[in-house]
């Protein structure tokens, strides 16, 4: 597993402070992050692959400083967004998966082979040449997962991956997260997804208010909501 270290991290948007002097070391295989809207959890996970650079403090992935080695870190850390519509950047399903493999020094045959394998794995082969926007919401999130996992990241970070999905599709995505061999860091409001996770962190107002076994942290979160 990779080691992700936040050291004294603070960040604000304009005059609104979203993270305050936060330090964390993440080594567990499956980590959940919970917190109310606006608590700072989306910002926290965006620091891991350098989508946001903190105002103060440092973030490292396996000793690599994210701010300095963003490209290297992004190869190791795959990111799943809430809205798959914004994550899909190419017109057709297979082009979108293949996009993740560009500029990695792979031959065309290698890229085609890996793309095909990823589509097979997520049951999207029949849609390979279809326009991505014609897929259903659940299929779009599957495509997003396929496009991230085809790059063989060591860590998969997901920011509320099931929020826009119906019950059946969110269960399907949750199952896929459980089955992943990668290190997984998931921000979610779907608390049952985290029940068998190794560690759950509860964020409130830019700081960690609970951190530990799922039952403990989720109870703390429920208490906050009450």
């Amino acid at each position, binding site marked *: 597993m990779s080691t992700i270290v936040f050291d004294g991290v603070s960040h604000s*948007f304009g005059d*609104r402070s979203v993270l305050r002097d936060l330090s964390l070391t993440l080594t567990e295989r499956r980590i959940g992050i919970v917190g109310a809207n606006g608590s700072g959890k989306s910002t926290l996970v965006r620091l891991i692959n*350098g*989508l946001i*650079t903190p105002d103060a403090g440092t973030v490292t992935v396996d000793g690599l400083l994210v*701010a300095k080695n963003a490209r290297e870190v992004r190869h190791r850390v795959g990111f799943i967004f809430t809205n798959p519509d914004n994550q899909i950047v190419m017109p057709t399903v297979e082009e979108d998966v293949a996009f993740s493999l560009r500029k990695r020094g792979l031959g065309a045959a290698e890229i085609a082979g890996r793309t095909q394998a990823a589509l097979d794995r997520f049951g999207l082969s029949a849609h390979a040449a279809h326009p991505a926007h014609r897929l259903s919401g659940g299929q779009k999130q599957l495509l997003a997962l396929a496009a991230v996992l085809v790059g063989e990241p060591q860590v998969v970070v997901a920011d509320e991956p099931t929020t826009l999905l119906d019950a059946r599709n969110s269960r399907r995505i949750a199952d896929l997260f459980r089955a992943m061999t990668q290190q997984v860091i998931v921000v979610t409001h779907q608390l049952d997804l985290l029940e068998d996770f190794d560690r759950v962190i509860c964020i409130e107002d830019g700081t960690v208010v609970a951190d530990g076994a799922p039952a403990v942290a989720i109870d703390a979160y429920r208490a906050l909501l009450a």
Partner: protein
Amino acid sequence: MTARTLTVRDLAQIAIFAALIAALGVPGPLSLGVIAVPITLQTLGVMLAGAVLGARKGFFAVLLFLALTAAGLPLLAGGRGGLAWFTTSPSAGYLYGWLLGVLVIGYLTSRLLPKYPFWPALGATVLGGIVMIYAIGVPVTAFTLHLPIWGALVDASKFLPGDAIKAVVTVLVARQVHRAYPGLIPRRRAVTASSATSTPTSTATPTPARASDE
């Protein structure tokens, strides 16, 4: 479109506005209540590209849209497209006029920001979005159809009321957008000092205005 000067965020904005110009062509020509003249919203997209994104990004957005249309995608209002509309069609000049128009609107808008007063802004939008576009479109029509300039001008004037409305709408929209979403058009050199405070890696960081859960 050189790799060195456009950030990833710029690229995304260019692509989205090229797509916006295309999407505004989908309803096809529509009539506006009292005025019985067909107008298409596509030139609204062109004017907005200049007034919202500025000269450089706006120009690329229009160029990209035109290239896709020339390549054979039916993106012009009413599902038209193909090389003929850029080469031999009597209305081809208007499409090239869009490129000049977006540059003029974008340049003048960047001079008017951040205050963006209504009447000068409307003047800038009319100059770029109507005068410049007609200045290329009308002579081309006259040349292709072997008409005298006045003949082509009379023909073009039926679009004038619609274009005037679009110019007003563009200014009103741009005003609200620049207030809700500052920093879309990079300031001129004189004020680069103030923009240097933004982080160099902020190619795609969400702006404060972003409505998501931070």
